[in-house]
């Protein structure tokens, strides 16, 4: 049994040591992060599969027992997300190992920032301490700003600045919320807050909830707080956009649901989440429809998916959470594939316009195929994994008697089909333009995309590969008393 602390410690440490390794032997800069990601992925899977049912692994940092010390909780819920994050981080590394492009240099800077972001996200998911969560969120956010501005251009800088602006607002709100919470309960441990929060004055509690909601909502790409998203996704390098979708957004939504499912106990927040989620879906998908640039289209689509996930979590039912987790899984895997494929599709087009991609199916068969597969999967066509996510999502919605929401989700799905199939139509069924030069995907990129594609098809054909784990994670999230009992054996929810 490995210590969950490694997930955070090793990437963090390597991130700072990377320049040193570079001094020793240059190629190590590329190789070491891979080893680290592979290792974290391995240990997280190892830990996750060996988890005893209903018994999360709790680690106390520096020997202080909670509620005084900081603790990490690797349970069935957080373990699942961590495994997903580390797995995708590894694939992003595989993809970007020798990704070459003008202005893109996979040197220490890139991998340092990437590792910081991964470490931060893992921290957000694992930590049992609310202030610690804030710190990790900051690590994630700051490394993301750096990654957004990676191409040293005007547009990238602008995008990064917007991200920074909104991100700092997010940090402020979260910090404010934590301050208020600490003042009311006198503790930062999430389990203890969970016990004590019942006693907080509802007025104050609602303000705390709103601050958290807005703060985490920014990271989770909630409307109307997601202005940073399209710019950041479209200006950052391809693999970075992929990791934003699969890692950054996931930690945001994780924080949101962890706080509202476990820590704070506020009625009414779920209706708010439902409304915000629906608005997010509508605005994002309808905007995506009118985009002419591939990457921006994907960014808006990504927002839409996050909105769907929020809606799923807003039902506050097991079916809803299960569907939400399934959607998170799908979104992480499929959107990563789409971003990775789009990295090569738009490689040598200046404008990254969709219409520049006419007839690429013939000249870039593999990448186009991967994009097409991703598109089929994300709009929820069987036999790909997206379908099962959507099916579970809709049955959950129906179980909550929200028939209108079903209709809305499906209408939006039609919109989604329109813009994705427009791209497919261009890729495969148009004559290509003269004088296009293309970049063939490197072998490792092919590998990374193939693995993702196999996961998509595998889960699509037999979703029970993952449904058990999702169901366990769902149960754990709902077992608030169990969470408290494990973190704080001495106290109990009264």
């Amino acid at each position, binding site marked *: 049994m490995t210590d969950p602390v490694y997930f955070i410690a090793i990437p963090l440490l390597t991130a700072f040591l990377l320049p040193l390794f570079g001094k020793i032997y240059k190629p190590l800069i590329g190789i070491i992060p891979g080893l680290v990601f592979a290792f974290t992925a391995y240990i997280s899977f190892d830990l996750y599969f060996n988890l005893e049912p209903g018994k999360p692994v709790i680690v106390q940092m520096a020997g202080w027992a909670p509620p005084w010390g900081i603790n990490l909780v690797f349970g069935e819920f957080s373990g699942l997300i961590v495994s997903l994050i580390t797995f995708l981080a590894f694939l992003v590394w595989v993809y970007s190992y020798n990704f070459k492009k003008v202005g893109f240099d996979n040197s220490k800077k890139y991998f340092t920032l990437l590792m910081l972001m991964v470490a931060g996200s893992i921290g957000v998911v694992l930590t049992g301490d609310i202030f610690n969560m804030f710190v990790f969120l900051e690590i994630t956010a700051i490394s993301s700003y750096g990654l957004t501005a990676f191409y040293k251009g005007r547009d990238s800088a602008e995008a990064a600045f*917007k991200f920074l602006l909104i991100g700092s607002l997010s940090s402020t*709100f979260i910090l404010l919320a934590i301050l208020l919470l600490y003042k009311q309960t006198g503790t930062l441990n999430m389990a203890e807050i969970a016990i004590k929060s019942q006693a907080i004055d509802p007025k104050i509690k*609602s*303000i705390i909830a709103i601050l958290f909601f807005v703060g985490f909502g920014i990271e989770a790409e909630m409307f109307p707080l997601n202005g940073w998203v399209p710019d950041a996704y479209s200006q950052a390098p391809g693999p970075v956009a992929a990791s934003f979708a699969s890692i950054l957004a996931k930690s945001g939504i994780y924080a949101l649901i962890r706080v509202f499912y476990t820590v704070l106990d506020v009625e009414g927040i779920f209706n708010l989440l439902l409304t915000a989620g629906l608005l997010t879906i509508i605005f994002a998908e309808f*905007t995506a429809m009118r985009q002419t640039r591939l990457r921006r289209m994907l960014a808006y689509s990504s927002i839409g998916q996050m909105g769907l996930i929020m809606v799923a979590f807003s039902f506050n039912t097991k079916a809803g959470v299960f569907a939400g987790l399934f959607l998170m899984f799908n979104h992480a895997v499929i959107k990563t594939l789409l971003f990775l494929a789009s990295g090569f599709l738009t490689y040598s087009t200046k404008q990254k316009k969709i219409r520049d991609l006419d007839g690429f199916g013939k000249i870039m068969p593999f990448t186009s195929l991967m994009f097409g597969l991703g598109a089929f999967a994300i709009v929820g066509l069987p036999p790909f994994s997206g379908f099962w996510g959507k099916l579970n999502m*809709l049955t959950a919605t129906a179980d909550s008697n929200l028939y209108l929401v079903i209709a809305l989700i*499906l209408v939006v799905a*039609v919109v989604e089909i329109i813009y994705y199939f427009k791209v497919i139509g261009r890729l*495969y069924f*148009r004559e290509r333009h003269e004088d296009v030069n293309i970049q063939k995907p490197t072998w490792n990129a092919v590998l990374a995309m193939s693995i993702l594609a196999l996961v998509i098809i595998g889960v699509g054909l037999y979703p029970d590969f993952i449904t058990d784990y999702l169901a366990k994670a769902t149960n754990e999230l709902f077992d608030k008393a169990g969470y408290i009992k494990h973190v704080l054996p001495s106290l109990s929810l009264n």
Partner: protein
Amino acid sequence: MSSLVILILIIAGFALLSYFGHSINKTAGNIAVFAAAVLIPLYWFTRVDFSETVSFTISGFQMELGYNMYGKLFSLIVMILSPLALIYALGYMKDSKRTGTFYFSFLFSILGMTGILMSRDFISLFIFWEIMTWSSYLLVIFLGKDVEKTGIRYMVFSALGAYAMFMAIVIIHRNTGSMMLNDYFNAFGNFSTGTKFLTGILLMFGFALKSAVMPVHVWAPGAYSNTPMAYTSVFSGALSKMGVYGLGFVVINLFAHANLHFAGTILAWLGAVTAVLATFSAIFQDDAKKLLAYSSIAQLGYIVTGIGIGTELSIFAGLYLAVLHAAFKGVLFMAAGAVERQAGSTDMTEVTGLIRKMPLTFFASLVAIIALAGVPPLGGFVGKWMLYESLINNGNFLMVIMIFLSSTAAFLYSYKFLFGLFLGQEEPEFENVKEASPLMTIPMLLLSVFLMITGSFPGIVFKYIAEGMTDLGFHDVNWQMSVLTNAWGDSVNLQHVTLSIGVVFVVFLIFLTWKGYKKTYYVSTKDISSSGEVIKPEDNMTYSTDFYKPFERVLHPILKRKIEKYYDEFGEGIGALFDFMRRIYTGNGQTYAFYVIVFLVILLVFSKNIFGY
């Protein structure tokens, strides 16, 4: 392993085999396709066990595959028409590029249809439905024409239909806790009125859309005419029947058994309106493919009407017409494809006088057209007769008139199709056109033979329909090999009809041909009576532009309003709305920060309403 699963796997395997075969070289791929065309139906006819069921649970949903006789009837269409179309495609697609993709999608759509017909639960039904949808979408845009308009339109409408079904499915699951079709049918009576209507209408919408019922038919003309003709025969012949299949069990199991007849009647009305308007549209098409596409919509209208009325004879007529339509529309689309390939166009104002160059294609088209028009003594008449009689017996007199109007007007486009492509002046431009290859003519001729046999012995089809209807809950469905009977006891004896027509025909054939025909010699179509003027070979004497202009003038008030226009306007309006929404993302950092603050303030102001403390 179960024979049903093996069947699915075989089709999927052949799809991959054809794809990879074609990426090696054409011959290998064509061999794979040919093997698929032979082995899939062979397996289906000899090895598939129709009493078998396969149950499994995926993601917590119970699923079950298994045939019933009603599904088997439709499978029969799929399993006979698709292999013929595949063989036809071997000839038709000989010189095309990317044939691998074509056959892959083709076989996958067969897989989808086969799967739909053996699904006993909504999830597998929906999965196969979607597979069928996307594979046919790939074929609709295969030629790269009109990708944006036709392709997207097809996909959007298909998605609307599919998602309507999807919504119905989840609501059903919420109310019954099960995904099985039978559980739904059994529980339907106990649903609240709202749920009854919601699920019933959503399902009906999904299925009606696939069967191109107005006003959701707009995807069909473009999709049917843009697809390579080798597939369109299946598209129109078999794929659209999946909608009919679904409508059948919705109407019968739900409406007929739960005394919601009026819902079926509404469907029947829609079918009748579809039949009339689509026929009118077909008449004025200049492209033979478009003409056939509209004609398909009209024919599906009859079928839907038959199903919608919901009496024994009408459903019998609807199902019979569905089978027949598959055969004759299969032939016609194949013929249009043959003309397109051999003469380079299907524009009826250009192509003309191919009868002597492509006699086999003409013969097959002629038989198919006679069947389509419903003229005795071919099979089409049987279906028309049963449909009329059932409507008359049921007292739906207005619907009879509409159907009759539609089928009388159908003579106009039937004639136009034959005249436009095969008859009329033989222009020097088409001097060197050759008959299509046997790979293309043989499937057409086989289907025409079927159409001729059903004229006297429709019982060979009735047998399967009766079995299917027994599964739908009709008892003692009467049928005879060659005698049609309606509810009032009036009947037509088809053997007498065929015999009488045949004898008279032969007598006069001998009379006219005796010493006559052999002594006559052929003169070109330029050698005609022309009031003394001498027609030179280059003179264009073809009358094919604005062929039915007078009729168009009569119908102008009806036809000037095109439903497509409304959809387009709706689409544009939505587009403008989207543009407006897009403006929210101004690209300005301060604005975004402002949104955040405003959002926060709003939440704080309304926190009391949100949290209700």
